[in-house]
Structures are given as structure tokens and as C-alpha cells.
């Protein structure tokens, strides 16, 4: 980053589901414009809107509320963290004992609402140095599971709602997420995904998790050279059948009640 960039107005994206809260931040940013010049790159009411805005706007800093509908602030930061030169993230929260304690422990920057001008100026002064916290920290902090998987495609973030994923299959370095329409490559490990969504996905094989509501039924099938028959899962809406490993079968049988 060049020296002149430090003096250019900081492009700020404000994310909050409450209109007066967004208005308030805009007011206070205006008040301190003399010492901390900023430009409002946009405002959004939740994480998904913010990510959509990031696709065509250059943003240096995101000021985001934590508790929001559709996608909360912590999850937004997790997706933003996947961008190579993504914006800095500062959380704003009215009162959330749990999150504040986690922020303190992780030394993540946050502002308490109502935000004071002096405190905001301080945060802006070091904003160019604030990267989104490590995914590991955010994962521990997030009070909820992610609502979306994100795929980094040519510097853009593509979102796939978790509910649309039928199964997850590990393939070499990646995990393939299959939705009704297409496949996506996730840069995550199957074990972590299994830990994050134990109620949603069920392990049926060493390399495969299936969404419980995507199971249409089970059947016996014969494959391979040995001609041995084994159990397969019939996936709702797909022609494909997924093999259940001998080792997982007792657990799968119990979980699906078959």
C-alpha cells in the first residue's frame, strides 16, 4: 500500500438491520470527516446484502452489526476473510455479553453501540491494518452455524445456502458440495464440516456426508468387480446413488430409522 493511499478517504460499508443504527454511524462518520476522511461505499441490512455489494464496490472497511437476520456479522467476516485483498472488519454491537467476552479474548476490534465519535476515530485510524480475524477464532465465536457456504471464484464470493447442499464429498484437496443444480468446490475439510453441522449432515462414508433431508431411501446395490452387494443411499432429486460404507452402516441405519 502506497503512502498516498493512507490519506485517501477510506471506503466504508455499513451493515446493520436497523435503519436508525445505519443512520447514526453515517452521522458520526460525517462528524469526524475532518480528521478521518471517509466515503460511504454502501449500506446493507445483513451479511448477504453486504457480500452482494462487495462484488462491484471497492471497500476498505466494513462496520458490521453482529445480530442480524439472514446472515449475521460473524459469518459475514468469515466469508470476507476468504478474499485475498478483502476489506478490514470492525464489529459493532449494542450489548452482547457473550460476543464481547470472545472479542476481548481474541483481541478482535469491536465498537459498542451507541458508538462515540472519539472511539470511532480511533478505530478508523488503525482500520487499514485491521484484517478480518482468523477463521478459527470466528468459528469459535460464532453463536450460530453458518447459513451459507462461500466459494471464492476469481476474487468474487459466491454464496450457496447450506440448506441447498444435498451432500458433501471429499476429493483430494477439496470438498465437493452438490446442490440440485451443480457442484461447488469448498476449501474446507470434511471433518470440520461434520463438526459444524452435526444435525444437518450425516456421515455415510469415510469421504462423504449426506444432508439428512436429502435421503429418499436406501437400497442394496451390487458394484465393482467382486460382485459383493452393499447399501446405497438414494438421493432426493438426483439420479446418483451414494455408497454407505460397511463401517458407517449401523450408525446410518439408526440415524435414518431404516
Amino acid at each position, binding site marked *: 500500500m502506497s503512502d498516498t493511499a493512507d490519506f485517501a478517504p477510506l471506503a466504508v460499508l455499513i451493515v446493520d*438491520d*436497523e*435503519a*436508525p*443504527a*445505519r*443512520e*447514526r454511524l453515517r*452521522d458520526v462518520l460525517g462528524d469526524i470527516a475532518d480528521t478521518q476522511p471517509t466515503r460511504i461505499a454502501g449500506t446493507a*441490512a*445483513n451479511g448477504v446484502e453486504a457480500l452482494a455489494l462487495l462484488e462491484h464496490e471497492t471497500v476498505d472497511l466494513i462496520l458490521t452489526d453482529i*445480530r442480524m*437476520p*439472514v446472515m449475521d456479522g460473524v459469518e459475514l467476516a468469515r466469508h470476507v476473510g476468504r478474499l485475498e485483498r478483502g476489506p478490514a472488519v470492525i464489529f459493532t454491537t*449494542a*450489548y*452482547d*455479553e457473550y460476543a464481547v467476552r470472545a472479542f476481548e479474548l481474541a483481541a478482535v476490534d469491536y465498537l*459498542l*453501540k*451507541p458508538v462515540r465519535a472519539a472511539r470511532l476515530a480511533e478505530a478508523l485510524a488503525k482500520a487499514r491494518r485491521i484484517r478480518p480475524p482468523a477463521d478459527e477464532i470466528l468459528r469459535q465465536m460464532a453463536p450460530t452455524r453458518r447459513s451459507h457456504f462461500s466459494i471464492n471464484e476469481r476474487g468474487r464470493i459466491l454464496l450457496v445456502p447450506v440448506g441447498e447442499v444435498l451432500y458433501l464429498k471429499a476429493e483430494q484437496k477439496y470438498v465437493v458440495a452438490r446442490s440440485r443444480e451443480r457442484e461447488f468446490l469448498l476449501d474446507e475439510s470434511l471433518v470440520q464440516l461434520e463438526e459444524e453441522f452435526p444435525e444437518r449432515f450425516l456421515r455415510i462414508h469415510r469421504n462423504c456426508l449426506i444432508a439428512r433431508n436429502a435421503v429418499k431411501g436406501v437400497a442394496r446395490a451390487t458394484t465393482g468387480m467382486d460382485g459383493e452387494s452393499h447399501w446405497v443411499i438414494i438421493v432426493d432429486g438426483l439420479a446418483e446413488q451414494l455408497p454407505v460404507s460397511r463401517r458407517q452402516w449401523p450408525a446410518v441405519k439408526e440415524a435414518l430409522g431404516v
Partner: protein
Amino acid sequence: MSIKQNPRLAGWGQRPAQLPDFRNLGVVLRTLLLVNAFAIAAVFVRNTDLSLLVGEVLEMAVNVEFPLILNVASLFLMQTLLRRLPFGAGVATVLAVVATIALVSRSLLSPIETGGLLRPLLWSLTTAGCVLTYFHQRDSARAPALAEARLLALTARIRPHFLFNSLNGVLGVLRSNPRRAEEGLEELADLFRALMQDNRELVPLTDEIALCERYLNLERLRLGERLQVAWQRDPQAEAALVPPLMLQPLIENAVYHGIEPGAGPGTVSITIERRGPEVIIAIANPLLDAVSHHPGNRMALDNIRERLMLFYDLEATLDTERDADAYRVRIRLPFRSER
């Protein structure tokens, strides 16, 4: 917050003694149980031959149940008068009623053996004394519990989340719409006044409704169009006296769990109706997150359930139910319009 530290609880124990509410179902049931337990104990003590026991119990039942029912019915009818008397005079009146009924029913049931009037008279008076003592003890034992419940009510009441978000909302409109900001602060002041009041006495339902309207107006400042409210009110129910701050926390829960987590508009519906001797209050909100077993929600419900119990004993209930898309809380309480 300083509202947690109200030191006035100390004087609470010196509340003047009161007769039980003879129209309360719990009091009636407890009286019937206690007197019957006494009577059966008396039969067991006197009994010498086990083969005669059944006959003796039946004989006792004839002698005890008739005056007992008469007593309960008379006290039920005299409740309004008894409430107005000082404690001592009230006790004397109750004992006089019991004595009269003992004598009258004795002479009605067995008019021939008039000699044995003294024994049933003494038995009735002793039993009545014991029952009154029991209710008196129970009442004084519960007084600290009531104070405790009030404390609980205060601490559970306003979520810090709500306070700071409201203040932030007011600040957000302060420059663009100063009138709305003023209103917001007035509503906040009213809410806090209600919270800090002495919340031991029942209040008219109309007052509770007015408070809730102010609360909802304040939330509308932040949530805008997302918060839709459907009131269904019944003028006949609104004269009822209800525990203070019973409605507001339930509506706050409905907003917190049913409106805030949703991106689009949602409706909180509040239905109040009078059904004969009862008032029914129902609050429903959209069911948004499947994981709505929020500990905060549970605490608020337990708190209100406990206060209903303290105010009405067994006569009030609070139920919750969830179906595919809504969460409902339903309160049923006796209609009472005077303290």
C-alpha cells in the same frame, strides 16, 4: 444497573395480617383437604376395633362433610364483607360462623340427642382455628417469596440488548427527525417508570395495554415496517386487574424471537378476551429459528408463571405451544375488578 438494588424489601415483612381469600379455588381445596385429614386422624385415634373402622369413617363423614360444605359456601358468600374487616374482627366472624353452623347442623342431623352439643362445637372451632393458623403461617412464609419474585421480575425484565439498541435508535433519528427522537425518549422513560414502580399490587389491564403500546412504538422506531402488530381487544376484559408487567415481557419475547431474526415484515398478534369469569390473553409470533428454546425466553416464562401462582394460586395458567409457523403463549386468569 441500579434497579437491581432496591433496598425497600426490608419493610415487607410487616404487612398487616390478612384472612385467606375464601373465593380462591386453592384456598377452598386446601380447606377441604385439611379438615378431612383432621377428621380421619380423629377417627383413627378413637378407633379400638379395626372391624368397626369403616362404619366409624362413614359416620364421621356424615357428621363432618355437611357442616364443612356449609362453612365453605358461607365464607365464599361473605368474602366481600370479610375483606373489609380488620384481621381480628375477621377471625372472630369466621369462628362465629363456624360455631353457628356446627350447632345448627348438629341439631338438624340428630335432633334427638341434644346433650352432645359441646363436643361438635369444640371440634369445629379447634379445626377452624387450625385451618386459619395454617393459612396465616403460609401467608407470612410466602411474603418473602413474593418479594423475591419481584426482585427476579426486575432483573429479568429489561434486556440490556433492548436498552442500548433503543438508545442507539433514538440517536439515529435525532438529527433527521427530532420529534420522533423526543417521542422515543418519552416512551423509554415511561417504560422505566413502570419497571421501577412498586410492583406488588395488581394493576388494571388497560394500564398494561397502554404500556405495551408505548413499548411497541419504541420498537417500531428501530424495526420500522418489519414490526407489524395485530391487537384484538375486548372492552369487557380490560377492567380486569392483572399482575403488573405481565404482558410487556411476553410481547418483548415475541419481538425478540419472532421479528428481529427475520428480514421481512412479521406480525405479533395479541388477543385479549373475557370468557365468563375468566380473562384469556394470547400472544403469537412467527416461528423463525427452529432453535427457539432460548434460555432467556424460558426464564421470562417461568418468572411470569411464578408470579401468576403467587397472585392467583391455582386459578391462573400459562401455556405455550408451537406449530409449524407460530409460537403462542396463552394466559388464563380469573376476572377480578376490585382488589
